[in-house]
């Protein structure tokens, strides 16, 4: 139930490998990842099981004013495990999604207004300027590594995740753990954020899995028979 830090099997990184990586890090370009400018901390739970909750550290970059793309890690330390991805879009963009797609997205209104979603290290007044916007957005979160069940490797299928939508869902000990580590109070922040507003048109009824749960399943598909494909390569 608590956020696990899986012990990944394998030998420690060799000196030669580390040196090579220092070199590549210095020479190469990191265009897309240089745009990652924000760290957001929040909680996710599995879309088929609210009792499995994960502390999620989002590292986000803006595609434009209305869309962010985030890498999700299990911590904010250097050895953090990359466990998932989240896309965050404005209400306007959300409304353009096909109806079959909308249930895979969740709202951020409650998380932001309750104080539970926050930006570590950023002073409140500044944080709130951004979170006012986040409050109106929708997110699509997929996790690939189920650290909460003790997996020390990213096995299994991708999991659609949901976000908190009301009081009583988040485990108090998870909340307390984060509050202590970051020296913050969700209750206090909730008061500061009372003025914030969610989506202009209200929370779309198809969002948040349309109020049900979601599950991912694997299905085999037919390939063209390997030998039957005539390919000519000049």
């Amino acid at each position, binding site marked *: 139930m608590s956020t696990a830090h899986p012990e990944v099997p*394998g030998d420690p990184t060799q000196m030669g490998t580390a040196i090579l990586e220092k070199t590549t890090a210095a020479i*190469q370009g990191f265009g897309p990842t240089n745009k990652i400018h924000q760290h957001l901390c929040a909680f996710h739970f599995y879309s088929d099981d609210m009792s499995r909750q994960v502390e999620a550290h989002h590292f986000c970059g803006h595609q434009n004013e209305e869309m962010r*793309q985030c890498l999700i890690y299990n911590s904010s330390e250097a050895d953090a495990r*990359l466990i998932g991805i989240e896309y965050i*879009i404005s209400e306007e963009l959300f409304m*353009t999604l096909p109806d079959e797609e909308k249930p895979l997205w969740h709202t951020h209104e409650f998380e932001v207004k309750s104080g539970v979603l926050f930006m570590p290290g950023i002073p409140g007044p*500044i944080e709130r300027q951004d979170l006012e916007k986040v409050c109106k957005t929708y997110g699509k979160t997929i996790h690939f590594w189920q650290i909460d069940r003790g997996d020390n490797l990213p096995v299994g299928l991708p999991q659609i995740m949901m976000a908190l939508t009301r009081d009583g869902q988040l485990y108090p000990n998870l909340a307390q753990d984060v509050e202590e580590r970051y020296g913050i109070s969700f209750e206090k922040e909730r008061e500061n954020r009372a*003025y914030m507003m969610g989506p202009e048109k209200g929370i779309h009824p198809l969002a948040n899995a349309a109020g049900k749960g979601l599950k991912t399943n694997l299905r*085999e598909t037919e390939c063209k028979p390997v030998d039957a494909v005539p390919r000519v390569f000049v």
Partner: protein
Amino acid sequence: MCPTYLTALCHHITRACPRGPSLTHHDLHLRVSLSSYKTMASENEIDSKRTLHTVSMASSDKSPGPTPDYDGQKPPGEPMTMHQHILDKGAALMQSLKPIKQMKQHVCTFALYSHDMSRQIETHHYVTRLNQDFLQCAVYDTDDSNGRLIGVEYIVSDKIFESLPLEEQKLWHSHAYEIKSGLWAYPRVPEVIVTAKPELELENLAKSYGKFWCTWQVDRGDRLPLGAPALMMSPQGVNLGMVRPDLVQKRDRKYNISTEDMKKVRTEIEEPEWINPQADYWKQHGKGFAIDVEPTEMKKIAPFP
């Protein structure tokens, strides 16, 4: 302290964007208003039957429903406002973003959709090493700063791969061909550095296996990340696994490299003695994989939504 910080930030941004408006502290003044929650607007009329009972399936191998046509290649959405740039800049100054700083390599390579291997994409992996046997990669569709985040790939040594259950191994692909053929490239890094013996980077990678989930199918024209995640496969030296030459040429031209030349340099790299037949599942079994997202009963500990 805060107002001083904001003033300093205004100056910083104004200097950095000489053609933009000059900003004052006033522009960043916090808006405080007391308003209550907005309840669901009555104009948001959705058929109640539909909301409660019909959550349709999303599948990685089915095209999503229509979204509006957008001009040009850019993802939909307004350009970033100055205000957002400032907030972003501020955050970047105050937060340490440690996991992102651990990305030490950029790899350009190719991948194929496991449910339709005729769909092939150029990928850009930003790689973080957790230990000698494990890598985690954020994958983008280009290396431009506006690259779209299209998925995640995990790479493990053969030692770790062999420890995985059979059912899990089916989801992974091998890297030997991809490396030896020169398809797997390190833009801007002289090949001699990558193939240098002591580091054994490519030799170890040639024995590794990867698991790659694609969350944004940009090649089918999706303007936003739609549908279920798709499982990807790696290039292989036979039929369905062969990457189209035009894709490779386009990549080579952009980076001024030659995949053919890299292949020659890499002939010395040892082939793995054995590639596990559970990997590259399509090769032995003629089957790909799709992911379906289906409605289910959510196990709850409190009311939802």
